[in-house]
């Protein structure tokens, strides 16, 4: 058994012959890690996950999950993976426990085993008290936990989570993270997740891949990527219209200066020491600093650095928007 639980090589998906959703991506996920796929809506995250969980056939390239080829050994793959989809898929008319048993039946798990596991899983996600209530009455957080429990019924070796906290409020979101961490620890799994919440990726993932327009832009540990930005970021604005880029660039420790929307984004080491130097240098040349902020880099800065833009929303298919809206609505319910 190699250490790579998931391995993608040149994985590509082209829809309708011309729409390239995923464009020759290569990555590997190591045993036991939480791997995050980060990117804006429409970047190709869900398409990638759907290829790995054998719902979509790759147009080109290959992917191995636990050593099985997703195209040629789809049933073997399906047996070793668990999936927690973006949408709430639990049946509203059935109770929590009925939903879990239904999932178990889909894996052909005998009833005496599945009943035991259902009890254990419901306990773990703290839904025991609600197990005989219809899912219709569940809150967003409870539904998400039920989906987690369903995804674990076959004791998967790899768990795929597609936007696990979509539509949840901040508190429920961090509670969900705790469940995810707990489950990972209890079941010794490898996790592959997609998200467009950067703080979520930062808090949960061991490694992340930033994907945009179907291509992987960078892969690494969140810390390493943030460090890779080369320290702190100073954002400042001056009163006049003059371009002071070259002036600032000469200052000690400053690594890079970019002008964006009338403000300067300055990458520097030891930001707290550099900031006064910049103000001083500008004043000597007769410029007045009107605004200044100093931040330690976040994943958002990493994201901005590699994609050249903030997380954006793109136009989506009708179907997808509908499913997402249903999820959001039920999350709030």
């Amino acid at each position: 058994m190699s250490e790579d639980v998931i391995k993608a090589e040149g994985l590509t998906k082209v829809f309708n012959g011309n729409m390239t959703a995923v464009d020759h991506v290569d990555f590997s996920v190591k045993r036991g890690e939480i791997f995050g796929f980060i990117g804006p809506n429409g970047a190709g995250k869900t398409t990638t996950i759907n290829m790995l969980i054998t719902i979509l056939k790759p147009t080109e390239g290959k992917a191995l999950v636990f050593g099985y080829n997703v195209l040629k050994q789809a049933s073997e793959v399906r047996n070793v993976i668990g999936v927690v989809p973006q949408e709430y898929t639990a049946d509203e008319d059935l109770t929590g426990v009925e939903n879990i048993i239904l999932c178990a039946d889909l894996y052909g798990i005998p009833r005496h085993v599945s009943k035991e596991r259902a009890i254990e899983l419901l306990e773990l996600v703290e839904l025991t008290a609600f197990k005989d209530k219809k899912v219709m009455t569940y809150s967003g957080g409870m539904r998400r936990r039920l989906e987690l429990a369903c995804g674990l019924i076959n004791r998967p070796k790899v768990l795929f989570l597609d936007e696990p906290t979509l539509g949840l409020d901040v508190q429920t979101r961090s509670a969900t993270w705790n469940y995810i961490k707990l489950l990972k620890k209890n079941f010794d799994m490898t996790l592959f997740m997609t998200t467009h919440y950067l703080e979520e990726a930062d808090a949960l993932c061991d490694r992340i891949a930033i994907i945009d327009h179907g291509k992987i832009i960078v892969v690494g540990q969140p810390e390493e990527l943030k460090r890779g930005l080369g320290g702190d970021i100073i954002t400042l604005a001056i009163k006049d219209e003059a371009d002071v880029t070259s002036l600032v660039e000469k200052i000690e420790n400053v690594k890079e200066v970019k002008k964006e929307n009338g403000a300067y984004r300055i990458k520097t080491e030891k930001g707290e020491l550099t900031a006064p130097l910049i103000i001083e240098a500008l004043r000597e040349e007769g410029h007045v600093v009107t605004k200044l902020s100093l931040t330690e880099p976040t994943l958002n800065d990493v994201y901005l650095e590699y994609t050249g833009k903030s997380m954006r929303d793109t136009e989506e298919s009708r179907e997808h928007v509908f499913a997402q809206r249903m999820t959001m609505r039920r999350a709030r319910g």
Partner: protein
Amino acid sequence: MSETNSNSQSRLHGIWALTNRELKKWYKEPIPLLLSIIQPVIWMGLFGKAMNLGAIFTGNAQIPPQIAQQLMFQTFKTDDYFSYMALGMVSFVVLFTTMFSGMSIVWDRRLGFLNKVLSTPVSRGVIVFSKVLSATFRSMIQAGIVIVLALAFGMKFGATFSPINILGVFAAIFLICLGLSSLFLAIAIRSTRMETHMAVANLLTLPLMFASNTFFPVSLMPDWIQIVAKINPVTYTTDAVRQLLIYTIDGTQLLIDFTYLGVFAAVFTTMGIVLSWRYLSK
């Protein structure tokens, strides 16, 4: 950790779980269930009693009763239009129940349930076949209720009726349901929009119902409709059901009915499963 589930998996595993999921939604919701039973009752009342086509002959003072009787037999092969129509209602109920079976796969797709099932080791054919089965079960129960109601409203059994014929009735209903739900599911399988599917299903359902012997004898229809009616499996179901319950059985015709229905069911079920293999794995 190393325990695998594959031991207990057969090619057909999950079929009962998925079928039962659909059935549970149906029998656990009393209002839609009640409505689906009330609907044929209303139709039977309106069509069979109010629009009593038989009265054209028997209610006409110009026609002597014996001749009216004869005319009735010539047209409807029975002297009671209500009995004729009530069994047409069986086909009607079957058509509408199976039409909705396609709808559920569109919903499953939109709510993400379909993707979830696709990521489990359940065979693709089973996903579609479980929907076919649940629609078939539902239609058979509803058809059974229609027959019981028809009896309560005064349907008269034919000379060759025996309780064993009821098995034949359900066999005929089973076959048409398999074929029709496969047909409607095949139409729905690629559909992502409820509206499109509804429009197509409606377009298909009305001709299937009216270009058949459901309400009116085929022999009195224009030639070109007769051709459609002869291809239409609904005609064969209705005829088989009527022969078994209210007509005097004509062995040859009954054999033709069942052969046609068997072929129809086999062809369309196979087609449904083949299409699901093709289109559920994109």
